[in-house]
């Protein structure tokens, strides 16, 4: 069944929301690139779950309110969002910037959460090991650094975006800059509160991630009290796309376990 797309207004912000499947709710938070396309990953998770994929304020088809100035603001906004939408006992999954956002939401209020899954997550930093510089890489270089499998990179590079898609990409890039430029992709205050996240947690990472090297996964696992690590070999920054089958199986098993 195709995803249902709707626009919901939370406070003064219209949010474009995609929903698919039936079952316990799963809230997926996308990364800095936004939701440029619907992923097979969502449909696969939706077998037995209701998957919610909002486009964050400032991204894609959602409003871009000036008052949301940083990721902590966005996290507070999402607390309003889940309350207004009546989301409860839900599983939270975040990728990259969305992983950072998920952790910020969880440290503020985890009372509605069943589990937390962080994939290639921004939000913390390993001292002396800077993240790859998405702001200095050129467009082709970025694609090549995101994917470990260069055949996959070639396929991505062959796609010529439409004018409308270019506009969305630019909007997403501006918002990512607002949130991620300084400090680069992390909040110095986040790491010290991760000990409070006593809930089932899965950390999924690509061994060859050039944006956040695998040592970042180790730091997450060290700080999160109940985290289990899935390190995906031969994989870059988007494990749920590059190694979809493997990652889908791991996450589905984890969600089922955590739903009990």
């Amino acid at each position, binding site marked *: 069944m195709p995803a249902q797309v709707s626009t919901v207004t939370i406070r003064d912000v219209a949010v474009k929301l995609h929903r698919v499947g039936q079952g316990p709710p799963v809230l997926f938070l996308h990364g800095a690139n936004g939701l440029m396309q619907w992923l097979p990953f969502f449909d696969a998770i939706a077998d037995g779950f209701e998957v919610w994929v909002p486009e964050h304020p400032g991204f894609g088809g959602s409003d871009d309110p000036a008052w949301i100035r940083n990721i902590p603001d966005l996290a507070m906004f999402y607390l309003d969002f889940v309350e207004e939408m009546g989301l409860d006992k839900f599983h939270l999954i975040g990728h990259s910037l969305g992983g950072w956002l998920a952790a910020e939401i969880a440290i503020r209020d985890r009372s509605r959460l069943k589990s937390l899954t962080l994939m290639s997550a921004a939000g913390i930093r390993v001292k002396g090991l800077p993240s790859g510089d998405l*702001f*200095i*890489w*050129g467009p082709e270089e970025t694609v090549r650094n995101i994917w470990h499998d260069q055949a996959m990179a070639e396929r991505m590079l062959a796609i010529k975006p439409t004018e409308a898609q270019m*506009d969305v990409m630019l*909007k997403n890039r*501006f918002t990512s*800059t*607002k949130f991620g*430029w300084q400090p680069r992709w992390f909040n110095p205050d986040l790491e010290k509160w991760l000990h409070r996240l006593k809930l089932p947690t899965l950390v999924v990472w690509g061994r060859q991630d050039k944006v956040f090297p695998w040592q970042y996964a180790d730091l997450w696992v060290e700080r999160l009290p109940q985290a289990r690590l899935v390190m995906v070999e031969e994989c870059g920054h988007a494990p749920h796309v590059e190694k979809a089958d493997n990652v889908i199986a791991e996450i589905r098993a984890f969600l089922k376990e955590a739903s009990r």
Partner: protein
Amino acid sequence: MKLLAFHLMPYRPLDLDAAAKARSAWVVLPNSLYDPVKGADEYERHIDLLVYGETLGFDGIGVNEHHQTAYGMMPAPNLIAAALIQRTKKAKIAILGRALPLQNNPIFVAEEYAMLDNMSRGRIIAGFVRGIGAEYHSSGTNPFFSHERFHEAHDLIVRAWTEPGPWSFDSENFNIRYVNLWPRPYQQPHPPIWIPSQGSSETVAWASHPDRKYPFLVTFSPGELVTRYLNGYRDQARKYGYEPSGDQLGWAAPIYVAETDERAREEAKAGLETLFNNYLRMTGEMLIPPGYTSQQSMKAFFRNRQSFATRDNFMSMEHLLANGVALVGSAKTVLAGIERMREATGMNILIGLFQFGTLSDERARRSMERFAAEVMPHLRS
């Protein structure tokens, strides 16, 4: 016409082949390519050359701010300005300018400018800029908030210069409990503020506003764009209901004068081409980070760059001269170029970049002398 001599203070001993291996001459150019012994000589020569501007009768001499690059060795232009004050008597010292958004406490800029203004007994021209895109990579400042930070810093500095303290300042980016400037500026109500720019319409509208009427300087642009931007300023001023004076309109361009056009071109070629192709070399990601301009402008920029990438984008001197980016030739040719721009725009400020790229002191000096002797008198009458 007001005439200023200006340099970027490039690091001329740069190993150009080694530098070409880096992504850019900015931000990531390995500083192992900088030799402090040669660098010390460079500072001495560049300062001497600027001081010579006063000797030759220029109204002012100019410096500016760039970080982590061989393009300019003045991350702290006020230090050079302080040195120039000690070596000169009459010339205005124009700092073109300090990059306000990079500051965490803009009071420091207000203080330094006020100090320089006192030390020079009112010879300071205070330039305010946002800094080019690469500075946001070097400093870590978020370009998304660049405009906001610029305007807030500007408001804070002007108020600090003019309103008796102490008082407190509150804005989105700057919250200062005590604003109470010691020293206050020498010039009253404050030093002239000039706005060097690449010509964004937002900046034009802001600088020309009747509350400000700040002189607007277009830098390093093809003649056609200089004309469009300066006339844009005039149109905007008229919309505000006043006629701008030529003293609000300026042009900054590389200038080289020799005995003949042919000789000038021969002598200026390497300097001009290294300036644009070696020292100014940076990627689009560095030049225009997201938020530094509007989404609209950024889109236009990258669209142009796409058509750019397919051709050899080496900028030859011939290309630069054909586009009117620089003035190179005999005194007669250079004068005609200036007169053409004055007629087209009504501008009354000319900022000559007399040393550029690898151009030697000797040549820069000769060119400045010839300009002073054979071009300057015509611009005075």
